[in-house]
């Protein structure tokens, strides 16, 4: 029997996993979209996006929509790999 791997602590948190699951299905998403779908507060979401971005799991682009600042996020190759590994480890636990 193969040893159980530890779940990636960066992904094994409710909000960060929700963000990654949202981004895995789309090309890119705006901050407001992620906030609406996760129901998180803006402050908490910003902090968690920073953590994912620092780890290289997502890329965050800050631009402007008219005069309003616009934050757009998309998952990176590193993020996709980490997400796939997380799901595979999860499968091991369930099996």
């Amino acid at each position, binding site marked *: 029997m193969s040893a159980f791997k530890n*779940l990636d602590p960066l992904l*094994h*948190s*409710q*909000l*960060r*996993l*929700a963000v990654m*699951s*949202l981004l*895995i*299905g*789309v*090309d*890119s*998403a*705006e901050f*407001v*979209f992620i906030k*609406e*779908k*996760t*129901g*998180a507060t803006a402050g*908490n979401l910003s902090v*968690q996006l920073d953590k994912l971005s620092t780890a290289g799991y997502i890329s965050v682009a800050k631009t402007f*929509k008219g005069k309003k600042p616009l934050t757009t996020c998309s998952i990176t190759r590193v993020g996709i790999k980490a997400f796939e590994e997380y*799901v595979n480890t*999860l499968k091991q*636990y*369930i099996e």
Partner: protein
Amino acid sequence: MSNKELTTDESLDLITNMIGQAKRNLARGGSFYFLLWGWVVMLANLGHYLIDKYDWYEHPYIVWAATIPAGIASMIYGARHDRKAAVRSHLDRLYGLIWMAVFIGVLIILFFMADVSYNVNAIILTFAGIGTFISGCALRFNPLILGGIALWISSIIAFNLDLTDQYLAGAIGILAGYLIPGYLLKRVERERI
């Protein structure tokens, strides 16, 4: 939603739920392009055919000038749609790339029209068929897949006609390949909203 740690079951539920949330926001607005280009190209084909057939005017190709405002309208619509959308799906991206590739192909053919003995219409119908067929496959929308096939059939017919009659084949092909599937797609988009 908080930062709490999850059990394995909670993790799976969350992943499934969030992927479902993203799915519900898939590409909309595709029918606009099929209807706009369907009407413009069908009427331009018919116009070119009638003017040429009945010798109404010595420069029948002038009708194709209608594609310039249609191109501008497409760009404005696309830019507005992108601005409004808070999320961009993989399908949105693919959709844009498919039609950009078709557009580049059409430009190349128009540039070398003398080298293809002015059979541009028949060749453009082949390209339009490719774009429509792949769009239909990406959207899993059968009327568009059949529309792509209709465009290819009209292209084969056009290759067997003289240059003037090719425009009539083009008009019928565009009606079957763009307009009919375009209206069916619009109906589905309305039901989804």
